[in-house]
């Protein structure tokens, strides 16, 4: 049986929502007694994931919604973001080579570097995608 979510937040897929999302994630993770540096990094990763959904999945149209759930279970934090945008090909979503100095495309690197693992899954029968990110509470990562 999975644990009840620490946070359930549904919000419009707009850039203007992000400050409120960051504040809610920050409060939730701080209440778990996590180190502020780790909280800041996780907040950044969630923000990047939401920004990618807004820009690339919904293509900035502003009409969609995003559902965020954070749960703690067996020494892990699980972050789940669900959108109702057209299906995204997970094969196209991967970190880029950081030795290239160019604008854009850093969000996935930040997520990849912050989380222990993550998975993007387009929903087969309904419109939308689910991004699941997992971070162990005891990890060598920042």
């Amino acid at each position, binding site marked *: 049986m999975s644990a009840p979510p620490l946070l359930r937040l549904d919000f419009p897929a707009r850039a203007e929502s*992000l400050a409120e999302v960051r504040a809610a994630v920050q409060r939730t993770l701080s209440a778990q007694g996590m180190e502020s540096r780790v909280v800041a990094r996780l907040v950044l990763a969630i*923000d990047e994931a939401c920004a990618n959904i807004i820009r690339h999945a919904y293509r900035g149209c502003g009409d969609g919604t995003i559902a965020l759930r954070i749960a703690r279970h067996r020494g892990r934090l699980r972050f789940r973001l669900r959108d109702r945008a057209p299906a995204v090909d997970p094969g196209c979503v991967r970190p880029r080579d950081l030795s290239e100095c160019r604008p854009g495309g850093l969000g996935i690197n930040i997520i990849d*570097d912050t989380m222990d693992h993550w998975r993007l899954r387009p929903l087969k029968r309904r419109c939308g995608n689910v991004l699941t990110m997992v971070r162990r509470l005891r990890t060598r990562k920042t």
Partner: protein
Amino acid sequence: MTDKGSELRRDGDWAVLRIWGEVDLSWSQDVRRQVLEAYAKAKALAVQLDGVSYIDSSGIAALVEGFQHARSKGGRFALLAPSEAVRAVLELARLDRVFPIYDDLGAARSG
């Protein structure tokens, strides 16, 4: 002072764009435009970041564009006094080794 904003000033040959607050997707396009417009006024641009409490990859992308613009036009570009929040993201993106970073404008001038 408002929770986020920017101001552009001229200091000799340099334009100094000071930014403060949270730079995220809701504002980064505006920051990008300001960085590129500042080059219309000077050949050297310093972006002062001590008051930036949060920056995401879209904000970093605006700085990268400014840096690339300077390189292509033979101008100078510098970051001044990045806050801890900015430094953390620059390090994560391995851009702390790419951007010229100085404590203040005096150091950027002689750098």
